[in-house]
């Protein structure tokens, strides 16, 4: 499927494809993970509106980071004709004076990129009169329509904000492709932090637990923090990767630019992937003994739940939905597939837009190197349209209780076929919901695996009970204690 798919450019081979997540949205949303910063959008007001609207609706899958100011230069027709550089310089000075941020990042848009506004020179001019450091992130939507490519390009920009390290900090690790603020931010400055408001550990805290569990220290979780936090990232001894789409490009560039080595890793879900993630880091840092002790302790806790889960789903088909529109997830469903294979399930991925598969070639390469090549349903399912799970079940000739449906929670409102959850086991994949504050999101690692197993048991039990679950029962039922 990968070989047959054309390169990830915007072309007429996929006339139905449209990237809902414009590169501008992707870039600004990632920058929203930073603190004490202001995003200056160099373009028409409507572009800024689109980003703001995205950030405040269901589509944003709100990351739980603090509100980001995003003033706009409000480029109009006259500016398109005459160039908008003067307006950008004036805006930057105004933003520096009024917002007093530590860092400003300029994001260009299609209109200013098409006329070739010299953003770098404008920044250089404005910088003389500004206290905040100003950086630029190329973000014109037309430059990389596929989401995966947008992410790659955006990730690279963060290396440009970094500085060569004056010293290396022993036993320190950066986690790339994660967000820190989601777990410990407070939406209201000065108010109590929101730690531990989740049912499960999120990705960043679970990976940090791995790092600290073998006697190392987390230096930076990127993208997060203020400008000082980002610029000093190259002081770490090694970079580890959570999400490859975000992490690999940045890790590669940091290695080239600052000589920080990286370990090629991917989202660890399940027992073996989590063990591998920890052991690779341990080998690199010479902490094998600590890692073995850590892993053993984790497994002691996890194995009973694993075995119980396996007894529920061994031999069943795992239907893993990758996306309900063009915003296909790939790395996480693949990581999930690995975890489900451990449980003895036969994995089938579907709803994977080929263009996004190619755009996320980094994820693909990782899993291929691992020798993991699960079945992907490449039928006549319409791209960009939600694949009706009922049709998938019928097409595969699956019998009830012979499968578990792992739903895609990107755009949960997108219709993906309606069926009675009381008769079909359905588990949220947690691709994006995990980012939402207070959402019952599972993370990665051993804790994430435990949460996944619990969710699978819950789904299977619900489907077998023959009646609809109640909200009260789900929230307060003490479900796991009763079986």
């Amino acid at each position, binding site marked *: 499927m990968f070989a047959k798919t054309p390169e990830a450019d915007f072309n007429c081979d996929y006339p139905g494809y449209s990237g809902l997540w414009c590169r501008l949205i992707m870039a600004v949303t990632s920058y929203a993970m930073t603190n004490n910063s202001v995003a200056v959008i160099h373009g028409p007001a409507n572009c800024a509106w689109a980003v703001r609207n995205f950030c405040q609706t269901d589509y944003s899958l709100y990351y739980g980071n603090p509100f980001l100011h995003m003033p706009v230069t409000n480029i109009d*027709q*006259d*500016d*398109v*004709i*005459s*160039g*908008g*550089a003067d307006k950008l310089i004036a805006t930057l000075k105004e933003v520096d004076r009024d917002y007093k941020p530590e860092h400003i990042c300029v994001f260009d848009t299609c209109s200013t990129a*098409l*006329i070739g*506004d*010299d953003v770098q020179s404008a920044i250089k001019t404005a910088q003389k009169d500004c206290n905040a450091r100003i950086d630029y992130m190329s973000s014109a939507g037309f430059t990389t329509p596929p989401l995966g490519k947008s992410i790659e390009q955006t990730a690279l920009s963060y290396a440009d904000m970094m500085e060569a390290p004056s010293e290396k900090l022993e036993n320190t690790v950066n986690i790339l492709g994660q967000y820190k603020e989601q777990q410990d931010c407070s939406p209201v400055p000065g108010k109590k932090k929101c730690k531990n408001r989740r049912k499960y550990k999120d990705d960043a805290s679970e990976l940090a637990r791995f790092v600290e569990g073998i006697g190392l220290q987390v230096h930076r979780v990127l993208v997060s923090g203020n400008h000082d936090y980002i610029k000093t990232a190259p002081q770490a001894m090694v970079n580890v990767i959570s999400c490859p789409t975000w992490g690999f490009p940045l890790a590669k560039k940091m290695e080239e630019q600052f000589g920080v080595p990286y370990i090629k890793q991917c989202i660890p879900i399940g027992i073996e992937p989590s063990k591998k993630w920890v052991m690779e880091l341990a080998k690199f840092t010479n902490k094998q003994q600590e890692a073995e002790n850590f892993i053993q302790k984790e497994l002691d806790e996890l194995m009973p739940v694993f075995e119980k889960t396996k007894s529920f789903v061994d031999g069943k088909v795992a239907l893993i939905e990758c996306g309900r529109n063009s915003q296909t997830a790939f790395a996480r469903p693949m990581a999930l597939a690995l975890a489900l294979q451990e449980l003895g399930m036969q994995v089938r991925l579907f709803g994977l837009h080929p263009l996004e598969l190619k755009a996320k070639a980094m994820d693909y390469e990782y899993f291929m190197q691992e020798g993991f090549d699960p079945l992907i349903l490449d039928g006549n399912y319409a791209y960009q349209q939600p694949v009706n799970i009922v049709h998938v079940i019928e097409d595969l000739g699956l019998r009830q209780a012979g499968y578990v449906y792992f739903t895609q929670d990107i755009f949960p409102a997108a219709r993906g076929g309606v069926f009675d959850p009381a008769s079909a086991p359905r588990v949220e994949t947690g691709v994006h919901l995990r980012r939402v504050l207070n959402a019952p999101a599972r993370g990665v690692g051993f804790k994430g695996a435990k949460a996944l197993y619990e969710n699978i048991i819950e789904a299977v039990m619900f489907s077998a009970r023959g009646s609809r679950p109640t909200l009260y029962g789900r929230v307060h039922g003490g479900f796991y204690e009763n079986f």
Partner: protein
Amino acid sequence: MTNQTRQIAIYGKGGIGKSTTAGNLSAALSCLGKKTAQIGCDPKADSVNTLMGGDFIETISDITRQYGSSETSLNRAVYRGFNNIVCIESGGPVPGQGCAGRGVLVALDLIRKYRFFEKNNIDIALYDVLGDIVCGGFAQPIRHSYAEEVYIVTSGEYMSLYAANNIAASIKLFAQQGLNVRMAGIIGNLRNVEKEEEIITGFAQKLGVPVVQFIPRSELVQKAELQGKTVIEAYPESGQAGIYFNLAAKVLDNREMFIPEPVSKQEVIRLLDLARTEIC
């Protein structure tokens, strides 16, 4: 647009003498009793300079940026030059910034929106368009059906013919797309290249269009320009003025329009080689 106003676009390679030709053509047309407007479609904004006594006028771009886009703004950008010719410059950004093509489009849209030619009973509107069709913006006078009649100014030099050929290719494309734009002919602005008239004639034949007029090189043109005037104004009795009057008369009479058949780059070179061989 109005049926009364004939809208003509003058295209050609940069520096080939479009503005000189357009200015003298406008002047001659006005002397022949036609109410004429000349619209400069170039951010340099120097098209109507010789009609304005050497003055540079404020452009539509400058004015709309300052006062907004309105009929009042358009009227502010209208100047009266030699023989009451309406002079307008679309204007645009300083070199190296912004999008000049967009500036041309906006200016022309403004003229159309406020029905300027109809309201001012203009008989002939002449668009003097920057150099080659370098981008969509500079194709606006013909792409958006402002001008349906195109004259290409060329010399017998390779690059000039090459540019003319490209413009002809654009006209053919637009015609195929259903636009009414057609080529009226070639104006040969001679640079004293050997066998120049034969080269231009051969090129025109290949394209399937006529050569409307050859304009010989004359020092009167530069002398007039240094006075901020056209030859028509400065030396009305001269032979050079007579040539421009001839051109104006032919343009007025010309009703034949063509879809050109552009040639390949190799054919242009072959044409020049042939002329050179004959010289040898």
